[in-house]
């Protein structure tokens, strides 16, 4: 029952988000951004949609057609599937699985295929380099993305996102799991390959990386997957570390879903701000940050969390 409104709502949110992101970037970078279509440019998404639908949906004759079509579908669908396990309010969830968190990890690991195949099927050297980078980056950051949220699982004693939120009634997990939060945030950024970690695209060196050959609605699907990934990652940050829909009692006057939405919006804005503020690192810097700093830190965090939780019992 929730499925259709959620899917449509997310796609609409993506449409407005891409406009809003460009407006915000414009303000932060002292320019105007798209402000012509509708009130302050609100309808820019509609204009872009019409443009993309009427564009020639080109298939590269030198590439692998089947995989070329499949790739954007995987990127977008895998991220949309994660929405199935996200609880927006105590009873607003499509499926409260007891493996919800693993479902998220599974879907984000399947998203790698979209990027990988997209670049490979394009049969273009920039695209191939981009998707090789994407594969290495996403597999690397997946490792400790999974490990960094195990601290939360230890505290909550469950993989179910509803249980995890309810376990934060006394204290949000950002306090005991601050390290986990930082690592999960960086990993989420790398998984959704947004700036500053958008090395798979890196337009100054790889044209547009893995989606160089994409145009028309297939390009829209790829972009849509990226924005849904931003929304999903923000939702998970809120659910895992900031108490989901829970707020202190004096703020109880609004329904829980509103508070959840507000918290998610804050993180979406942080993602946009990061894009505006931070330059892209070099590729080897990204990889050595992952393997040499974040992975050991995650393991230490996991050990310490286990130690203190067992100490407390």
């Amino acid at each position: 029952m929730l499925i259709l409104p959620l899917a449509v709502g997310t796609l609409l949110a993506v449409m407005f988000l891409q406009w809003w992101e460009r407006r915000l970037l414009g303000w932060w970078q002292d320019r105007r951004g798209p402000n012509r279509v509708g009130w302050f440019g609100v309808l820019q998404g509609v204009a872009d949609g019409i443009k993309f639908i009427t564009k020639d949906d080109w298939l590269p004759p030198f590439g692998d057609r089947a995989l070329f079509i499949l790739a954007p579908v995987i990127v977008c669908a895998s991220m949309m599937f994660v929405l199935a396990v996200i609880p927006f309010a105590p009873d607003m969830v499509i499926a409260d699985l007891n493996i919800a968190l693993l479902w998220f990890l599974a879907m984000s690991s399947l998203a790698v295929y979209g990027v990988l195949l997209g670049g490979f099927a394009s049969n273009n050297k920039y695209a191939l380099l981009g998707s090789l980078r994407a594969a290495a980056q996403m597999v690397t950051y997946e490792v400790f993305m999974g490990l960094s949220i195990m601290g939360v699982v230890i505290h909550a004693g469950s993989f179910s996102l509803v249980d995890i939120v309810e376990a934060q009634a006394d204290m949000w997990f950002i306090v005991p799991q601050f390290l986990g939060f930082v690592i999960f945030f960086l990993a989420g950024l790398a998984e959704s390959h947004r700036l500053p970690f958008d090395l798979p695209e890196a337009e100054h060196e790889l044209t547009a990386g893995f989606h160089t050959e994409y145009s028309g609605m297939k390009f829209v699907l790829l972009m849509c997957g990226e924005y849904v990934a931003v929304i999903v990652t923000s939702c998970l940050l809120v659910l895992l570390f900031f108490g989901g829909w829970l707020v202190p009692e004096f703020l109880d006057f609004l329904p829980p879903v509103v508070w959840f939405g507000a918290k998610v919006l804050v993180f979406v804005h942080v993602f946009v701000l990061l894009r505006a503020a931070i330059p892209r690192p070099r590729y080897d810097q990204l990889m050595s940050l992952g393997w040499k700093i974040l992975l050991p830190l995650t393991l230490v965090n996991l050990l310490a969390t286990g130690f203190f939780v067992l100490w407390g019992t």
Partner: protein
Amino acid sequence: MTDLLLFWIPAAVALVSTGLVITRRNASHALIYLVVSLLAIAVIFFVLGAPFAAALEVVIYAGAIVVLFLFVVMMLNLGQSSVLRESRWLRPGMWVLPAVLVTALLLVMVYALAGLPDNTTMTKGVMVGPQAVGIELFGPYLLAVELAGFLLLAALVGAYHLGRRYLEERREA
């Protein structure tokens, strides 16, 4: 009836896609069918009441290991020439002995499965959650977990050794 369909549909998908993994000439297409096959097996695990195993099947096999396979295939970027070379190696006569051996294995497996009592149906079983798996792994199967740990550590040290030799050679050059 629905129970049976829930089992037979993913089972059929797994069989067909595994067949395609073997017969595809294009290595990257074969790997995609392998992913489909793994996903179908994950669905079967889920239907049988083992959601944790299903999730790990997707995260580890479909999401990590096959990605690395695909990564290597992409790096090698095999073209038409390697397809031709492979079809030269694999003459029809090559398939006789493997087919005989596999048929023998299949017969043994069918015989063993036929001997099972009829009431071991799948969807009637209990749900095995993540906690139950953990308790079993670190209870009766602790030794196996530790041995797997040794093996992985050895693999890690081996990989480091190979990588370091490469780095040293490059530094000298």
